[in-house]
């Protein structure tokens, strides 16, 4: 639609997203005591997910500024859609 393409990751309101490699992802899930279905989800069609090239089933780490805790790390699992 828009004529000019830009990288959403550049926007100041978009927190840092990064793909988590599979071995590390299993590690993290073990640490958190969660199975993948209990994670919050993010769609594969999400602009940031497309930008970093994560595929369904992958884990995405989001690092953002938090009003209460300074910096906070959360995880999303990429789902179809």
């Amino acid at each position, binding site marked *: 639609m828009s004529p000019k393409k830009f990288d959403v990751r550049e926007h100041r309101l978009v927190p840092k997203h990064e793909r988590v490699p599979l071995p590390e992802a299993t590690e993290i899930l073990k640490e*958190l*005591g*969660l*199975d*993948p*279905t*209990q*994670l*919050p*989800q993010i769609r594969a069609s999400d602009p940031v997910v497309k930008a970093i090239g994560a595929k369904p089933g992958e884990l995405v780490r989001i690092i953002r500024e*938090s009003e*209460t*805790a300074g910096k*906070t*790390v*959360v*995880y999303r699992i990429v*789902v*179809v*859609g």
Partner: protein
Amino acid sequence: MSYLPQSTLKVLEKIKFGVLSPDEIRKMSRVQIITAETYDEDGMPIQGGVMDPRLGVIEPGRRCPVCGNTMHGCPGHFGHIELAKPVIHIGYVKQIYDLLRGTCWKCSRILLSEDQIKEYLSLMERLERLFPNLKPRLIEHIRQKTAKVQECPHCGAKQKKIKLDKPTNFYEKDKGVRKLSPDEIRARLTHIPDDDVRLFGIDPKEARPEWFVLTVIPVPPAQVRPSIMLETGVRSEDDLTHKLVDIIRANNRLKESMDAAAPPIVIDDLWELLQYHVTTYINNEVPGIPPARHRTGRALKTLAQRLKGKEGRFRGNLSGKRVDFSARTVISPDPNISINEVGVPEEMAKLLTVPMRVTPWNIEEARKYVMNGPYKWPGANYIIRPDGRRTDLRFFKDRKALASSLTPGYIVERHLIDGDIVLFNRQPSLHRMSIMAHKVRVLPGKTFRLNLLVCPPYNADFDGDEMNLHVVQTEEARAEALELMLVQEHILSPRYGGPIIGGLQDYISGAYLLTTKSTLLTEEEVMDLLSVTDYKGELPEPAITKPVKMWTGKQLVSLFLPPNFNLRAKTSVNAGRLKCEDEDCFNDTYLVIKKGKLLAGVLDKKSIGAQQPESFYHWIVKEYGVDYARFLTDNMFRMFIRYIEKHGFTMSLDDVEIPPEAEERIREILKEAEEDVAQLIEAYRKGELEPLPGMTPEETLETKIMERLSRARDQAGEVAAEYLDIFNNALIMARTGARGNILNLTQMSAALGQQSVRGERINRGYRGRPLPHFKPGDLMPAARGFVYSSFRTGLSPVELFFHAAGGREGLVDTAVRTSQSGYMQRRLINALMDIRVEYDGKATLPDGTVVQFSYGEDQVDPARSDHGKPVNVDRIIERVIGHEL
């Protein structure tokens, strides 16, 4: 109850809903209902009618012909009605519509190719396993995809458009428009294969699509729709019974017409009538059709209406039940009981009971209760033997023998006594402080008594408010209530890091008057003040020894402070001419507490008030614990009240009266403003008014006028405040924050100022003018709701009208706001109530789904935090060394 064996409890794993098939309906039916007649001339139910005795007995003394039980044991039995022609079930219209649109009219296959079917089926199976919450999205996707297909991939038939004419009529659009009869719809649905049904999100084992079109309907047991006998002996039937009779009547007429081979128009009409009756039997609030009505004109309450809404089965009877061991009455204040007590009328205490298990240690006490019986407090209403048999003491004559027969193991249901723990609640229960645990104080009278200091958390006043009380029955519940719900555990609110309980009104005025510099008390007065508290120690050294011993109020307050308490803080009265920036304060408006001694400053709203974070009271609660805070609140605060009682405190007209020269100055200020406004209007008329950015000239004028007038009112207020005696009671209340503010006082003594409706000067009413007293288009302050008078001088009729207009808006706003925020609260709570914090700090749903990886991202409890921060370093330093760095 606690004495039931726990091992019989099972855990629900899942619930699955399905649709009754016609076969199932027939199988569970005991009798086919064929006649619309209910009773014969003798009042006996007719066999095959809707009150057939085989549907269950509800008359006492009769036995059920099916199960042989009396009315207490018979669970009721279903019947059924065979419909002459099928009708659409109103609850499944949406599904039928989707199915018709998504399948081929000719071969009834889903409008997807074999490959796609296979693909979607396997995707659906995987989704169900891994992400069940995504399944609805896939189903929606399939629904939209199939509805668009033009040609059947299976038989190649061209697809026709299906139209739904709400509520129950389906049409097929090809060249012309043709109505689809329920017969035809049912035939199409029957031919859809099971796998295709699955793709629509329907489990064909539990709900075949053809079951959405009714061929037979179940008749619920008599217990579900009991008839009521009126005093006149006339029988009045339940709404459902009426509706069933309508269905049978319509059905029989349809059947007769069909047998008589009546013309299709007649049959179609009767068919439609049957559809109407079946639809309204299920749901009488379907949009697009008139609701079925009772003879009196009242709309019938049919199946859906029994379940839906606030008074429906779910919200009214399952989520919300009426409970035993509860009481409700009007509340009234009692400043002499503790904040964690509640006064209970003796009459109520004799009806509310607590089960008390008899042990060797309490057997004598239990005997005493039994001996006193149900009518003498403190007594007992029931005893329960170890074998579970209950004895009602109301009907037992020889209570003395009964009392001596008590042995350990018996349970005595004794009356409520002082010290019992109960839950106390005021609606609306918006936050957790709306239900707190209190200790009982049985008192004479007919109202619940509560300490005034717990009014803020309940948001209660005594203009007729009623509250509820629940008596907890088990030891576990008592322990939880005592540890978690007791009033003092809720002094700090999680809403903002500060106390929600604290001084208000007279407590604040009293504290100010007591601690102010000029207060000196004789020994007698000191004794009197301390006698209302639990203070047991020595009197301190008097501040003045000659000619008589005198104590200051600050000394009395210091008696209750912890010996190592340090604090320096501004007070509410620290403002205007009495402003001070540090503890070297001549005006005595800077609070200084060192080593538990109140050295300077006064106590007022900023230090002891409710909802004042980082105050004297807040630090006491935080640093010395809630039990100490309760002690302080019960004793020191009671002393404040005692002092204001002795001192006397009132407000009169004189308190807001100002000298003539002040009135003159105020008139001058208002006149000046009026002239400025006239100039602004003049400039606007000439078109010389420079519009403010983003505003029309009219808006600019209004903004400037409003701004000028509010400045005038403020100036007038300042003048008035200047002339008011600083120790007049009205001003003391405003300055200490006990009640009212300076603005209220200026409105009373100087001028009321601008009245507004919807944030604008009052401009509604007649064309170009709010009232016929003004010329059209008059923009001067007086013609737009500016009130020059004060409450003391009195308002002119026109001014009074403006004031009423502004006042009414406030009332309407509160009414609208409460209903809207109430609904929002309900929806938020429904969405969030299941979230809990795990031991590792994750916020999750009960199935383990993560909501927050770490509660609040920092795991800080707002009730125990300082402005959201876990520690307040400045306060720690002050506490330790007595002053800031």
